[in-house]
């Protein structure tokens, strides 16, 4: 476990999570959430929890992104608030 690499990946995860909340375009928000999921996957791999990381990569970055896309398909792309 490398402390500096851990800190950098965690910083990227926080940045992507914050910008996924703040961005107005919902499609960009979905992609940023997928990137956040990927960075969480990297953090878990780096911490040695490979099984959790694999689940995160399969579910978080893979299937749930498709679910959000499917939900977005039935609504508007711009957020109101």
């Amino acid at each position, binding site marked *: 476990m490398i402390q500096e690499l851990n800190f950098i990946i965690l910083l990227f995860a926080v940045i992507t999570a914050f910008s996924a909340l703040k961005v107005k375009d919902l499609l960009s928000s979905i992609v940023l959430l997928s990137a956040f999921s990927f960075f969480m996957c990297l953090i878990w791999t780096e911490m040695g929890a*490979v*099984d959790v*990381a*694999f*689940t995160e990569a*399969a*579910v978080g970055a*893979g*299937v749930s992104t*498709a*679910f959000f*896309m*499917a*939900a977005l*398909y*039935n609504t508007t792309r711009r957020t109101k608030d």
Partner: protein
Amino acid sequence: MVRDVEDVIIKTIARIMVPIMQVYSLYVYVHGHISPGGGFQGGCIMAASFILLAVAFNLGEAKRRLKEKAIAVFCSLGVFIYAWTGVVPLFFGGNFLDYSKWSHILPGGEVMARYYGMAFIELGVQIAVMAVMVSIFLDLVTAGRHEEVLGKDDDGFYSR
């Protein structure tokens, strides 16, 4: 997504990637007890391959490969396999999910019976997760209007 898209690159890549993803998901399932992975991850990858079919081609293409009746059957079949893997050891005096009692039925002794038990459990999880994930995706993308979608033919229609 539900309409047909005319893009050669996306269609060709999807046509190449879908079998690779399905074989990889079976690899993840089979090696679940010695390496990271297992039924849940393998089922998610298998479901992602069908979702890729629906995204790259259209919804009718994915439904032609995996019928909606088959999805309903697979949802129940996965739970059925899981439950009976646990119930069968009860008949031989073991606890629920006591894999070693499978050695009364299957050859190879108690150690191999535990491997068989894990394989059955993961098979049930894989089938159930795959079917449920595809079902959730179809529910989301059609906004729950399955009946009118099922009533028509299977080539890339959708009325919105």
